[in-house]
């Protein structure tokens, strides 16, 4: 048997070993290696990292970093605000929010919180600063302007004005 053939059989045996190890070690090792690459899910989906949290008594508003679309990605720039816990929200929320943290109000957000979590939500956003776009009775038409309930939070994405 030639050296090449011996190497071939060795590699074939190692492949069989890899098959046996896959459910016990190999798969998890690859998964951990991939997770360690430091990749993150696109912010158009995740909403971007949280910048700060504003306490509002029984609930709080988390303000995320503004998200800007890449290249030809559909949607507009937006900023995500999370009201949580949803269970502590009043029946009607009407909050003035300082989004950029400069001490001045930027938007007024109004929405109802139905008791049934499956009821579709609608939101009105009145811009108090030209940086933000108005939203009128909007639901979840797209990733960059919406109101949805995710777990125990109500998420509002307010589009940034194009300028």
């Amino acid at each position, binding site marked *: 048997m030639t050296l090449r053939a011996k190497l071939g059989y060795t590699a074939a045996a190692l492949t069989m070993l890899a098959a046996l190890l*896959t459910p016990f070690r190999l798969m998890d090792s690859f998964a951990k290696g991939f997770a360690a690459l430091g990749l993150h*899910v696109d912010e158009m989906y995740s909403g971007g990292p949280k910048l700060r949290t504003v306490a509002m008594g029984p609930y709080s508003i988390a303000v995320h970093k503004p998200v800007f679309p890449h290249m030809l990605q559909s949607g507009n720039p937006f900023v995500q605000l999370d009201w949580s816990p949803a269970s502590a929200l009043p029946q009607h929320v009407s909050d003035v929010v300082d989004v950029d943290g400069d001490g001045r109000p930027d938007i007024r957000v109004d929405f109802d919180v139905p008791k049934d979590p499956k009821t579709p939500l609608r939101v009105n956003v009145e811009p108090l600063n030209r940086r933000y776009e108005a939203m009128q009775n909007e639901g979840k038409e797209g990733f960059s302007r919406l109101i949805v309930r995710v777990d125990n939070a109500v998420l509002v994405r307010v589009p940034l004005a194009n300028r």
Partner: protein
Amino acid sequence: MASKACTPRLAPATPRSVLRALLLTLPIAVWSLLMLFHPGTPTDAKSRIAEAVTALFMTGLFFMMMRTGKTYRWRRCFFVALGFLFPVGFIYNMVLARGTMGIPIEEMIAGRTPFCFLAIPLLIVPAALTKTLVFPGSIAASRHAIATMVGLWLALTLVLGKGWCAYACFFGGIEEGMAAVPKRAKIRKIDPRWRLVPWAVLLAMVLLSLALFEPAYCMWLCPFKAVTEYVTARNAVGVVQNAIFIVLFAGLVIVLPLLTKKRTQCSFFCPFGAFQSIFNKISIFEVKIDRTRCKSCGVCQNACPNLSLSKESIAQGETLLSCMKCGACVDACPQDAAVWHIKGTEIAWKPERARLMFLYAAWAMAVMFGGSIIAQGLFTILHFLA
């Protein structure tokens, strides 16, 4: 070359004895029990019945492979079961969790979209350039998270190469089942240039995914969205997307396989299949044509469900890069010229040894991955029957 014609061959000219076939099947029987009954699997009666039936099914098919010396027919039984039972279990779980097969925007934002391996080639360039994954899932939060599925795909690819498309893909079985229905193909002459289309689709989808920053194939072209989870039609765009999914599924997965007896979606469209072909270069197992025996009759070429043999490749004793090691050509060849082969070894030197080594590795993966999917599908059916 003449000496090769006299080399000993281990391929069983007649079926193996039952006892010998049983002995060869024993490791797979133990593996099936280990994979399907390990701690952590559900212990209710319906789950146990589904797991037991699956273990018997997978072990029985391997026994028949050992007993008859044939591969393709028995592998196809598994693969078709996988293809048809995957949507059953998947849709049941989706409807149970969300109440619908559609993906609501809330689930995407929450990162709860189950990750599908078809998206892998689309993620690579955006991830390399921006460290961003253009998929609405989570990286490591759950069993269906991106890291888990990528880890599984890497391990299976290391073992199987393009064999993924014949032993692991949970979509290909539907069209393989459809292709098995007619006795004869209505369309026999297929222009070989169609083989290039998956590469064109792959290139286009990779570039589009980078430009649009979304998994373009999943959003616009995946035929299997029709039987798994589709985009919720919130507007006209969503309606168009879903219409495309249904038309492609009906055409490429149902109608064309019935007319051609080929896996048409895999052969002429699937960008993941094209991407997976690259890994045949690093896979140690392959199928070769022994030129000393080949009479160039073309039977293997007709038998290949994936158009992975051409006159030119047969003349060179090779399969094309897209060969998924299903064994159709090996089983069909009247001269035993199509053989399983381990790279580095002489062609046709103990091909049954190469076949056994490949099948142990491939079937172990099939039981681990496909077996659990089949068990889930059977459980769902039992659940509804009860």
